[in-house]
């Protein structure tokens, strides 16, 4: 106020070092903080890209799943497919799978999709079409493809039989045994086998003619058989679940993996 009386033209030093008021300082702090937090939130969101890009997880997706990238895009992560599966084969992925978080997958060795539901219930439940609605029959599914990964341990290849519980008494998986109850999947641990030659993969395969056991030699007395997978295989994983060897001699290659091979 005193300065305003003086006639000097420019008594005040240039305003470049002008001190900010507390309010301005606080505003600036809030803005900086917001930019930082916003960037952090975006960065946190982008972390999820890493496991997907590096394909750290190679998951078998439920029947009708679109190609992996389209599937991750279309899936709304609601888990309705999990809820309708009669054998509870479908699980939701955790945060370590990046953008796969909350996306359904099947661990076939623990519980395969055995089509106990007949009409692909998970596909009907999917609200977004991530499990393609174009599929109406189990034969149209293309989840993956079975492969005899360990022929050396395969009992049929060795010409051996199998007696007992396919996966032991403490295995929790379920399977539709039509001769017991068509509508109530039974615990695999409740069903005992007595087979002269192990043919569990072929015997329990829900798709007719997807697996056959072919003779290994021309000798009619040679009991050895080679499990052979045919084009009609849908990759449901029942063979992998039922294989009595540890680890499973027959496994499912996922579509992701098959895509790489092709």
């Amino acid at each position: 106020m005193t300065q305003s009386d003086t006639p000097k033209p420019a008594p005040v030093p240039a305003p470049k070092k002008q001190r900010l008021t507390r309010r301005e300082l606080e505003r600036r702090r809030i803005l900086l903080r917001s930019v930082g937090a916003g960037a952090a939130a975006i960065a946190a969101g982008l972390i999820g890209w890493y496991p997907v890009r590096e394909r750290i997880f190679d998951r078998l997706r439920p029947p009708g799943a679109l190609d992996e990238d389209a599937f991750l895009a279309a899936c709304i992560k609601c888990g309705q497919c999990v809820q309708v599966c009669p054998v509870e084969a479908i699980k939701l992925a955790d945060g370590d799978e990046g953008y796969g978080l909350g996306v359904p997958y099947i661990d076939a060795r623990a519980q395969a999709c055995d089509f106990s539901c007949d009409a692909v219930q998970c596909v009907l439940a999917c609200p977004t079409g991530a499990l393609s609605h174009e599929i109406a029959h189990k034969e149209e599914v293309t989840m993956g493809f079975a492969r005899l990964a360990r022929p050396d341990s395969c009992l049929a290849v060795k010409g051996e039989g199998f007696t007992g519980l396919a996966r032991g008494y403490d295995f929790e998986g379920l399977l539709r045994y039509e001769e017991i109850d068509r509508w109530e999947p039974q615990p695999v641990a409740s069903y005992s086998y007595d087979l002269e030659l192990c043919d569990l993969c072929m015997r329990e395969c829900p798709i007719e003619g997807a697996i056959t056991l072919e003779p290994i030699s021309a000798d009619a007395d040679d009991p050895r058989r080679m499990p052979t997978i045919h084009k009609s295989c849908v990759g449901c994983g029942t063979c992998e679940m039922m294989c009595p060897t540890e680890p499973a001699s027959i496994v499912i290659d996922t579509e992701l993996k098959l895509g790489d091979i092709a």
Partner: protein
Amino acid sequence: MKWYLHKLAMMFGAAPRKASPAEETEAAREMKKFKKTPEQAQKRKDIIEHEHQYPVISHKWRNLRWLSIIVINAMFIVSFAWDVQLVEGSMSASRFLGFHMADPNAAIQVTLAFKELMLNLVIGTVTVILLWWLVGGRAFCSWACPYHLLAEWAEAIHLFLARKGWVKDHPFHRGMRVVLWVVFMVLAFVTGYTVFEYINPVGIVSRALIYGPTVAVIWVIFLLGIEIFFSRRFWCRYVCPIGLTYGVTSAAAPLQIKYDLDKCVHEGECRAVCLVPHVLEITKMGYASDTTEYIGPDCTRCGLCVDACPQKALSFTVRGLDKIV
């Protein structure tokens, strides 16, 4: 109209302000003038003093709301656990008695990422938007969102620690939420992944409740930690795009919180409890534009202010109904 646009702009991060003389109604001007007379000022002082001497504490709406959040989420849990098929799915998408429901925010992301319009998703989204529009859009936040309940408890801890002087609230710019909304939608379109769903605590909590705990819950605990120790209601106030989506879809909803200037003694109890206090700036002396007005689109209709106001100056109302009756 201009005043309403201002309220809309506040939802997008604009700073709250006083109603200008042009936005003020004649009645409001008269009432404000009357309220500024010394006798009225003294009267208000007396009322506030009396309130402080004989506090009336009500948790009516809060209790109802907590019940609502718990019941809604319990329906999801029970549907799967007991296989009763009431509400199948989770918060991001579900079937309620067979009808499709979808979280609009997740649905927009999926559509942008997948680049295809899916009929079921459109049906579900429209159903949900219509239902929540009736009760005020962001009512989803305070009446259904499971994270909201956790955040309210975290907020209580934060306020307790703040009273002790151990923590301090660090506010952010509310515009951040708008920027993040746009960024995450663009990311969904460009990357082809629903990027936001990866950090969405609503989805994570909802799925963890229904399908069992996951490691992803650690992220939610981290967010709650931020809210307890650093910034009050950080996620819901400044980040969550779901809140913005619901806010926008019901910018003019039937169910409103009505402010009554006549009854208000301007002590600010409502602003102290509010999740979005900028909508209650109109309760400041001289800020309102009319003698009664609806408090605005960003409001979550949580009812905390209705409970907090000892003068009943804030109340639930259905737009237009008060004029008919």
